[in-house]
């Protein structure tokens, strides 16, 4: 921990996340969502006809579906008005699809990502980086040694052009169809940017690839799509980071993530989400896992006004497995409703869900999870563990797991505990000379360690630093 702590002092995270830039756009769609808007976006991206058709079908779906309002204890979405957001902004960048050298970025964008620390991370720890600014990927790079092995890491818009066959087969067809939920439908209609990752058979990408999403403009929506296809026996770790400065109008983030984990393949998907506290974060993330494949979801949800996000794994092949590790931190005015879903659809499948939440200053956290064991998924097992830490009496922490068990030869366990931060622990730490704040900070760092230890060091440091700022109450 000590080296992490030293590193923390060198970066001023508040300045890194909260700065704003004056908006400079080459193209911005009109507010709201109409067929015309979608045609304009599709045309601006020079998309093939089939993609435009998919968008229009998704729009119809979106218009048909009601807002989710009747889940017990769900966040209030009454302020989410898609007619009030700008769904698409293409920043003023010379090269469509992003440049591959930081030096070629316009100064203001370069400056943004410099402040976020992206170039350092790329140099030190990553196989490749994609950076999205507003609706478009502005930077994309992949180390050559991976490209030589046939690994593809590019922005999604470009993948529609260059890997049309794969995209056509997998894009919102089998994994996240637009009919899944209202915001998946919205996403299908106006998605833009995001990442495409393709890892060929038996290829191990042993350093993580990273995408960073930055929403800078007021009142915009960001709808990036991430598609990961990991062929048989391959391995890849994808990291996504998100941030946006705070404005008075609301922002909407409604991304879509689809992961295909082939036979014996292993995909880890890590997110540290720190949207500004006016952002509604309504995402759909899902993986389909083939025989003996392994999917890992690691997520830290720090920011946003309200989050509704339940990454899902469908364990389709015999022996497939899933691990979820999630942490949610809700401060004043925030409602983080997150969890995990696992469908055991084959025999010998295994899953574990470890969920931690911290609520403070009136924040609300909710674990909402679903474990489904289908008839025939013999010898499957699942273990769910939720721990909630609460700081004060204004905060709320709910646990709402759902378990649907259709098979008898299974082992299903769910456990949850809630408690306040231990007075005795604080007293002990104080007796060792720490002040109250530092003591609490240290207890929280220990509480979230299962997550931080799964992340590359830069991310672990960032997560710790974010938690520290939340604890100080210094983030707006």
């Amino acid at each position, binding site marked *: 921990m000590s080296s992490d702590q030293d590193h923390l002092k060198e970066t001023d995270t508040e300045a890194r996340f909260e700065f704003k830039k004056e908006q400079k756009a080459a193209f911005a769609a009109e507010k709201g969502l109409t067929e015309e808007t979608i045609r304009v976006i599709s045309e601006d991206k020079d998309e093939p006809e089939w993609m435009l058709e998919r968008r229009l079908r998704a729009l119809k779906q979106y218009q048909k579906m009601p807002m989710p309002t009747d889940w*017990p*204890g769900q966040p209030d979405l009454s302020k989410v008005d898609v007619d009030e957001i700008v769904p698409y902004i293409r920043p003023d960048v010379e090269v469509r699809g992003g440049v591959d050298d930081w030096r070629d970025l316009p100064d203001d964008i370069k400056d943004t990502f410099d402040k976020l620390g992206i170039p350092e991370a790329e140099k030190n720890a990553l196989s490749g980086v994609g950076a999205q600014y507003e609706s478009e990927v502005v930077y994309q790079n992949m180390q050559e040694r991976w490209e030589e092995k046939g690994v593809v890491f590019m922005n999604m818009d470009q993948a529609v052009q260059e890997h049309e066959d794969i995209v056509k087969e997998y894009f919102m067809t089998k994994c996240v169809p637009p009919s899944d939920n209202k915001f998946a439908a919205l996403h299908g209609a106006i998605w833009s940017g995001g990442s495409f990752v393709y890892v060929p058979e038996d290829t191990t990408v042993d350093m993580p690839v990273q995408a960073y999403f930055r929403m800078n403009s007021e009142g915009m929506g960001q709808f990036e799509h991430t598609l990961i296809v990991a062929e048989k026996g391959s391995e890849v770790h994808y990291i996504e980071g998100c941030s946006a400065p705070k404005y008075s109008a609301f922002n909407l983030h409604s991304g879509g993530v689809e992961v295909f984990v082939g036979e014996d393949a292993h995909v880890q998907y890590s997110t540290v989400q720190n949207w500004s506290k006016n952002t509604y974060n309504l995402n759909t993330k899902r993986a389909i896992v083939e025989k003996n494949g392994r999917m890992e979801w690691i997520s830290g949800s720090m920011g946003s006004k309200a989050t509704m996000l339940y990454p899902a794994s469908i364990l389709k092949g015999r022996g497939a497995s899933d691990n979820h590790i999630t942490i949610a931190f809700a401060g004043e005015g925030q409602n983080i409703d997150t969890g995990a879903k696992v469908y055991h659809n084959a025999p010998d499948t295994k899953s574990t869900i470890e969920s931690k939440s911290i609520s403070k200053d009136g924040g609300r956290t909710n674990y909402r999870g*679903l474990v489904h064991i289908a*008839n025939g998924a013999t010898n499957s097992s699942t273990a769910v563990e939720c721990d*909630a830490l*609460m*700081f*004060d*009496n204004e*905060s*709320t*922490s*709910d*646990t*709402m*797991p*759902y*378990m*649907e*068990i*259709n*098979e*008898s*030869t*299974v*082992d*299903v*366990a*769910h*456990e*949850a*505990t*809630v*408690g*306040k*931060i231990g007075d005795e622990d604080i007293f002990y730490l104080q007796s060792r000379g720490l002040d109250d704040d530092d003591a609490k900070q240290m207890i929280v760092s220990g509480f979230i360690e299962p997550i931080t230890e799964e992340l590359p060091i830069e991310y672990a440091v960032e997560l710790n630093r974010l938690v520290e700022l939340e604890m100080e109450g210094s983030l707006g």
Partner: protein
Amino acid sequence: MSAQLPANLSEQTVREISDARDEPEWLLEARLEALEALDTLELPDVIQTPGRRWTNLEALDFESLVDPLNQSDETTREAPDDVVVLPFTEALDEYGDLIEERFGSVLDLETNYLTALSAALFTTGTFIYVPEDVNAEDVKIRAEMNSRSLFSHTLVVTEKSSSVTILEGTESGDADVEGERYFSNLVEIDAGENSYVQYGSLQNLDEDTYTYSLKRGDAGTYSTINWIEGNLGSRLTRSDVETELNGDASETKIVGAFFGHNEQHLDVNARVWHKAENTTADLVTRGVLDDRARSVYEGVQDVGRDAWSTNSYQRENTLMLSDESEADASPKLIINNHDTEASHAATVGQVDKEDLFYMASRSIPEQTARNMLVEGFFVPVLEEIEVDEFREDLEELIAARLK
């Protein structure tokens, strides 16, 4: 989703029921209000996850199930001398004022369509009144249902520093009733300061009967309400057992046991609201499923903003004996006060293979070993039962169900 008002239900029906029992005006008014509310009330909430409702109450045809003017039951009541245990309607003569004051005070009669239906139409039930400082053991109520539909309302009032243990058994009688039936049971307990109530229910209706029960307690300062809820019978059981911990240092236990076989559907729910300081709750449910039976369980521990120093625990364990059975569970924690120690756990699994192997190695035949393990699985519930007769009944019913 709203159910339709059966055509055989009218103000006239309700007046007839009330007149036949020579009820006071206030009760007739309460019934009529409940009747009127049916137009707008919804069926009880059921758990929903994407693509499915866990219990399909909408499929019940109340038009054909409900026959309000031909209700018939055979109920026996045993009690020590110093407590009042009377058929509900008879109790109105002597305890009218007390009943008027408490009726519907713990359980909102307009909670949903089915509670209002029950309040409008009930003809049976029991009034139990335990005066101050009286300790009453073994109050026994045995009810037989002898008609197509039967609606029951029970009110328990315990005064300061009293205690009572109650067993309520419900069965189908021998009466010839063709086709499907409906039994509705509402129970409210108003537990006074420092009083203790154990209310045990054993529902063993035949498997042509659909049953809805809502049991609700209001625990006063230093009081304890312990529920034991045994469900073995009925085609479809919807059972809600709830305690509001309104008094400081009040406590509750909700202990449930169910055993489903054939095509039985059991929707059992245990809920507790911590609303005062230093309250404690313990929810324990154990269920076994065989054949194509299905269980739905929801447990709720709700800790209010002002519930300082709360302790709240919940466990639910389901044993599946068949691949065709289904066990769904949702144990929920709603925590609004950080000065709380709360946990819940739920498990679903099979009879332990190692235990079976161990017993086989002691030359116990496999089926016998399995049966012994299933019986053993219910021990934590059986141990909670204070009325001996109730415990023995439950043990017998479990044994009878084993193959």
